[in-house]
Structure formats: structure tokens, C-alpha cells
């Protein structure tokens, strides 16, 4: 028998595409000499060869794609990425609802201690803000209207309303239940509470949410929450080795916060003229009674309307779930930190993961870095006692202990559209959350960023002043042939500046690329050239000349630049008064050079 080995290596299949496989088959058939018509494109055999080759190529494409999708660095599909990082123990973040700090006053309420029960809510305009835990306060005076100092601005209301979800346990080891809610329900990642009614004792107990059951013993009443590959929440219980196992027929009540998403964000003072409402659901009253171990005195139904709420600042912004890119970025760092906070990067990863809903950016610095840059900055601008600077002192008094050399400073930028600082409740929340994971000797202090403003200004003297801003205008020479209106061009300029400076999410220590802004504005259809001009001296600077200053210390920290620059890590920049930029822009029609049009 005449036999011949295949002339291809075992792994050569990966190098074939449809054309090369077709050629190989034709080549083999030619050697065979039985068929001849494989060489004529119209023949039947040629058609069949092509079908086989093309099918092979298509299958190889999907095989390669599937193989690639199993790689952490290559995967592009959320489903796959979520599964891959499960092996690293990383739980991708789900949606995070907006939250707001509040002030509360008690009106016509007798003196005494009270507790606002968890899940009580305030309704405003189609959505709600809820308490996620019991809040106790004391009314100390007989005043008709008393501001409740001990909870004002210390706690937060979370956008959404709690929904009860019931489940009966099967009693299997490591039992997992999936919250089967409708696809359009947005659940807040950090507000999923689980209560278990033991089938034997018939008493409800609140179980504790933990990062990993592996760290707990057989009697701990704990559970894990995971945002899974289908973007549903899985709740996993123990197996009586790591975490307590559920008994068969144990009754589970899950309370999750159902958010309205970005539409639930509110501005300052939105809580005025609203009232607290009592929460109710199938098992709520029984659960509250069973879990009230401290014998708290809950508000009576008639007392809810005695509390008057206001909010000084806007809510934080709604944050969407981790994208594939987010997970790619966070998961290795999380794995590296092993759930312990030792290095600055550990702190940053932990804080960015857990407080994505309230922080738009954060920077973690050691005591040395803090002194060498942040405190030095205040010395440099002329303060003789930087530790008495208002924001520094405020954080020091509220969050630091007497020993200062072991502090970890976290510069935290709130996720709001306004230039504000974190509320004390938010700072305390970060400190409390970090506590179990950090080294005992390191104290965490949340520091506030330094906001600096930017505006067009031309340098005329060695010492710039804020007067230069008022005296500077942006002159825009229009293209002779443009048919665009001045308003339309102005809108484009404003959009560029807004997208560059006044973003929804600010960042710390950013690099300001003036050349890029210059290029973007120059690319606007209808603009021939533009420059900044001092109205009094007539001095001009081609393109963009920016004044950058600290509004709090505007005589000391002020500079004018036409070059790219990078801010120090504790500074955040915004464009000054961008809403009224039309007052600063002058359009020059080059067809009628003498005619300047002031908007």
C-alpha cells in the first residue's frame, strides 16, 4: 500500500486561513490524480472545497476569539471578565446610588432619645432618599424647633427605596441565591441587607456582609455579595466550615436599595419641605422588633412629621457599574493588596473601589509627602502656621489623634458637580471602612483638595492681579467665508472649555494641555485665529494665556502662563465663571476689520 505522511506539522492548523487550506486541498487532490476539476473554479468539487475551507476558517476565527476571551488581558466581554476575576477573589462593583448629607431639626418633639428606624425614607418628586441604618438622636431642649446637632451632616441619605425580597433556604452547603429582579431595576451595590429567620428559633437575625467567607469560622452569621456576570446580585452563605450554613426552610428576607439612577440626583436644598415616611413591608415590623437588641426607642408613627430635613450641598452623583476596563485596572491591584492596606497603592485601590459613588478622585500620601508638598505649599504662599489653615485645622481636629508622624493622608475629591469638600459623614464613613484592613499604627486622615481657578489673562506686570482677568478679552478673528453665527461659535468654545475644565468628574493633579485647548479652539469651523488682549495696555498673547490662582489666597498663589503645566497632587482646577464667558469673547469679522461685534 502506498502511503504518505501529512506534509504539515501538528500545530500548523493555526496558520491556515480559508485560502491556504483551499490551496492545500487542491494540491493534495492534484497529487491524488483521481479528480481533475478542483483546478476549475466553476466545478462542483471546487465549490465543495471552498465550503469546507471557509467553514474551517470561520470556526478557527471563533475558536481563537473564544480562547482570547479567556485571557484576562485580552477579554472584551463583561461576562468573561467578571468570571475571570472571580478566580482572583475580586468582586466587580455594581451601580452605586447618589447620596446626600442632611441637616435635621425637630419641631414640637418632646425631649428624649429617639431612633429613626432603618429604611425610613423621604419622598421627593417621584423618587426617594432612604436611611440605610438606624439613626439615634437626642432632643435635649424644650425649644419648639431644635437643630439636632448630633446627627446633622454626620449621616447620609441614600437615593432609592428599600425593597424586600423573600427566599426560603434549601439548606445546602454554600447556598447561593440570586436576586431575580427585573432588568431595569438598579440595585445599589453597598445596600443589600440580609435577615435570616432561623427555622428552629423563629427569630430574625441580621447577618453581616463580608468580603470573603474564607476568613470566618463556622458559627459566624455572614454572607458574601457578588455582582455576577449577568449583572445580577448573588448572595452566598457559608458551609459551616467558613461561615454558618443555612438550615433547610430558614426564611430569608433581603432588603435591597432600588435606585432611580442619575435621575435621582438632587441639588442643594432639595430636601426642604419634605417629610420622613415610615417604611413598611411584609416582614419589616417583625424584623425591627427582633433585631432591636439595644432597646432603642423608635420614632412613633405620629413623630415622623416632627422632623424637618434640609441639605446644604448637592447629592453625590450616581456611579455606574465597573466596566471591563475598570475591572482590568482594579482587579490586579486588589489581588496585590490581598485585602490589607499597607502601601499607598493599597489604600488608593481600596478607596476607589469602595467609595466610587462619593469620590471622583483620590490621592494617598504618607506623612513625609504631606509635609514636603501640601504643608510646604502653605508655607510657600506665606502662611506662618499652615496647621492653622482652615481646612487643615478642620481635618486635624476632627480626624487626627495627637500623634502625627504615623498618619496616612487621603486627598479626596467628592463626586459632585460643585466644588465642595467631603462632608464629615463621608469622611467618617471612609475612615470607618478602612479601619479593619489597615495596619493598626497608621491613622487615616481625609484631607481636602485645594481648588484653583483658571481664566484668560494677559501678563502686563511682573505681579499679576485679579484685575488682569477683568481687563482681558478673548479676541476671535472669524474666517471671511464663514456663514456661522457668533453664538454658534461661542457655544463651541464654551463646550471645549467645559469639557476640559469643568467636567462632571474632576481629578487631582491633572496636567493642563494649553496647546491642545488652543488646537481644539482653532479647529472650530469659522475661526481664523484668536488671541488674548489686555483692554487697557493693548498687550496681546497669541492663543491662550491663562491665569491660575487659588481663590482663597489670591494674592499669594497666582500665576499667568501660556505653557502646559501640571498641578500638584492636592490641587484641582476649574474654569472661572464659565457661564458668563460670552462677556469675555470678542468676535472680529476680518471682512470688516473695523467692525467688532460684542455679544
Amino acid at each position: 500500500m502506498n502511503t504518505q505522511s501529512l506534509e504539515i506539522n501538528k500545530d500548523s492548523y493555526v496558520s491556515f486561513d480559508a485560502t491556504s487550506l483551499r490551496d492545500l486541498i487542491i494540491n493534495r487532490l492534484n497529487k491524488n490524480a483521481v479528480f481533475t476539476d478542483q483546478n476549475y473554479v466553476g466545478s462542483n468539487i471546487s465549490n465543495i472545497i471552498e465550503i469546507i475551507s471557509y467553514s474551517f476558517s470561520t470556526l478557527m476565527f471563533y475558536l481563537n476569539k473564544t480562547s482570547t476571551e479567556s485571557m484576562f488581558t485580552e477579554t472584551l466581554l463583561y461576562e468573561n471578565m467578571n468570571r475571570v476575576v472571580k478566580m482572583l477573589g475580586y468582586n466587580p462593583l455594581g451601580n452605586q446610588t447618589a447620596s446626600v448629607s442632611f441637616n435635621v431639626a425637630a419641631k414640637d418633639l418632646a425631649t428624649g432619645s429617639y431612633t429613626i428606624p432603618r429604611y425610613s425614607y423621604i419622598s421627593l418628586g417621584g423618587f426617594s432618599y432612604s436611611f440605610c441604618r438606624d439613626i439615634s438622636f437626642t432632643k435635649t431642649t424644650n425649644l419648639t424647633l431644635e437643630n439636632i446637632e448630633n446627627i446633622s451632616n454626620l449621616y447620609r441619605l441614600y437615593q432609592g427605596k428599600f425593597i424586600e425580597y423573600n427566599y426560603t433556604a434549601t439548606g445546602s452547603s454554600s447556598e447561593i441565591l440570586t436576586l431575580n429582579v427585573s432588568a431595569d431595576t438598579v440595585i445599589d451595590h453597598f445596600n443589600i441587607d440580609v435577615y435570616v429567620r432561623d427555622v428552629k428559633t423563629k427569630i430574625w437575625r441580621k447577618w453581616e456582609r463580608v468580603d470573603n467567607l474564607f476568613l470566618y469560622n463556622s458559627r459566624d452569621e455572614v454572607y458574601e455579595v457578588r455582582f455576577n456576570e449577568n449583572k445580577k446580585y448573588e448572595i452566598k452563605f457559608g458551609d459551616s466550615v467558613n461561615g454558618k450554613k443555612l438550615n433547610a426552610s430558614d426564611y430569608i428576607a433581603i432588603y435591597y436599595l432600588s435606585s432611580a439612577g442619575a435621575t435621582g440626583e438632587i441639588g442643594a436644598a432639595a430636601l426642604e419641605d419634605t417629610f420622613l415616611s415610615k417604611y413598611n413591608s411584609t416582614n419589616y415590623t417583625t424584623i425591627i422588633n427582633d433585631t432591636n437588641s439595644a432597646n432603642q426607642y423608635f420614632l412613633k408613627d405620629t413623630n415622623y412629621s416632627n422632623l424637618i430635613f434640609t441639605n446644604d450641598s448637592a447629592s453625590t452623583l450616581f456611579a455606574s457599574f465597573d466596566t471591563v476596563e475598570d475591572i482590568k485596572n482594579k482587579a490586579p491591584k486588589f489581588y496585590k493588596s490581598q485585602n490589607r492596606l499597607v502601601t499607598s497603592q493599597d489604600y488608593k485601590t481600596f478607596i476607589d473601589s469602595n467609595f466610587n459613588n462619593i469620590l471622583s478622585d483620590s490621592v494617598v500620601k504618607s506623612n513625609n509627602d504631606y509635609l514636603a508638598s501640601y504643608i510646604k505649599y502653605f508655607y510657600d504662599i506665606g502662611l506662618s502656621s499652615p496647621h492653622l489653615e482652615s481646612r487643615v485645622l478642620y481635618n486635624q481636629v476632627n480626624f487626627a489623634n495627637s500623634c502625627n508622624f504615623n498618619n496616612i493622608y487621603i486627598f479626596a475629591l467628592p463626586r459632585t458637580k460643585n466644588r465642595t469638600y467631603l462632608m464629615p459623614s463621608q469622611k467618617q464613613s471612609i475612615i470607618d471602612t478602612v479601619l479593619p484592613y489597615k495596619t493598626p499604627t497608621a491613622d487615616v486622615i481625609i484631607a481636602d483638595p485645594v481648588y484653583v481657578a483658571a481664566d484668560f489673562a494677559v501678563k502686563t506686570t511682573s505681579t499679576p492681579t485679579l484685575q488682569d482677568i477683568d481687563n482681558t478679552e478673548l479676541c476671535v478673528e472669524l474666517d471671511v467665508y464663514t456663514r456661522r453665527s457668533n453664538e454658534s461659535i461661542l457655544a463651541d468654545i464654551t463646550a471645549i472649555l467645559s469639557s476640559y475644565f469643568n467636567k462632571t468628574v474632576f481629578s487631582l493633579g491633572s496636567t493642563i494641555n494649553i496647546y491642545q485647548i488652543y488646537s481644539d479652539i482653532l479647529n472650530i469651523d469659522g475661526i481664523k485665529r484668536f488671541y488674548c488682549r489686555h483692554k487697557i495696555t493693548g498687550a496681546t498673547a497669541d492663543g491662550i494665556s491663562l491665569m491660575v490662582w487659588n481663590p482663597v489666597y489670591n494674592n499669594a498663589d497666582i500665576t499667568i502662563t501660556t505653557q502646559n503645566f501640571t498641578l500638584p497632587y492636592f490641587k484641582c482646577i476649574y474654569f472661572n465663571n464659565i457661564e458668563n464667558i460670552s462677556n469675555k469673547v470678542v468676535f472680529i469679522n476680518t471682512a470688516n476689520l473695523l467692525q467688532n461685534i460684542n455679544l
Partner: protein
Amino acid sequence: MGTINFYQNATEFSQRNYTYADLRLDLAEDVIVAKNKKSKSDIAVDYDVSAVRNSITNMFGTRKGQRPLEPTFGINLDQYLFEPISTFIAQQIGEEIKSTLKFDDRVAPLRIDVTVLASEDGYRVDLLLYISSLGVNTLISANLSRLTREITIL
């Protein structure tokens, strides 16, 4: 490494008495008589003129771009079915067929007749081809129907 016997049939057919061989498209079973061997069943094969006719028939049935690895192969005769039925269009169809026959260099067209079938709202194509390597002529006829929008090989 495993081996595949590609050459068994080649030995049997080494003294072949045909010039062209193509698979029959219905993949039917047929009895093949191999040299010095007993007859056996195998996939049906079209030889010589039948093989060439397969090629020309497939040409009529394939639109350009339909085959991913041979995108220029085929003929778009159905585009003419939306034009008014006329001798002018018939001539264009003839030219198109003539230019497409270049894909098979075994045949040379002797006559290409495209007749207007006004009563049937279409055309009849008669293609007389000379297969030089075999020294024979073959006639292929097809109907192009505007009503059914089909090309039927007769």
C-alpha cells in the same frame, strides 16, 4: 504522527481513461470499476463532457460575490430581468456570458444565441461550446424568466 492513505485510489486510477473528473453535486452513490479490482460503491463522479457542463452550469447559477474565496466568479444575469425585454438587452446578456466563460479555459464558445421570448417574458440562451481537449462540441441551453426570476438550465 498518524498517516492517511491519499494514494490508494491514485494507484487504482493510474491508468485512467478520462480527462476530466468532477464530483456529482447530488453526492449520490455509484459503482466504480477499478483496474484489476472488483467493482465497489463510491461517490458518483462526472467525467469529461459532464464535468465541463457542471462548470458552465455553476457559472450560470452563481452571482458575482457569492463565493467568498472567488468573488469575481459568476454572472449577474438576473440584473437584466428588470430591464425591458429587448434584443438590445439580449445582446448585452450574450456579451456578459462570453466574458464570463474566461473562467473555464477548457471551452471555446462557437455560438451564443440569446433569443427574446416575449410570450414567456424572458430569454432563451443557447450556448454551443467546443471542448478542445476532448475534441467535442456541447450545447447548453437555459431559460431566463422574468416572472419566476430564475435561470433554468434545460
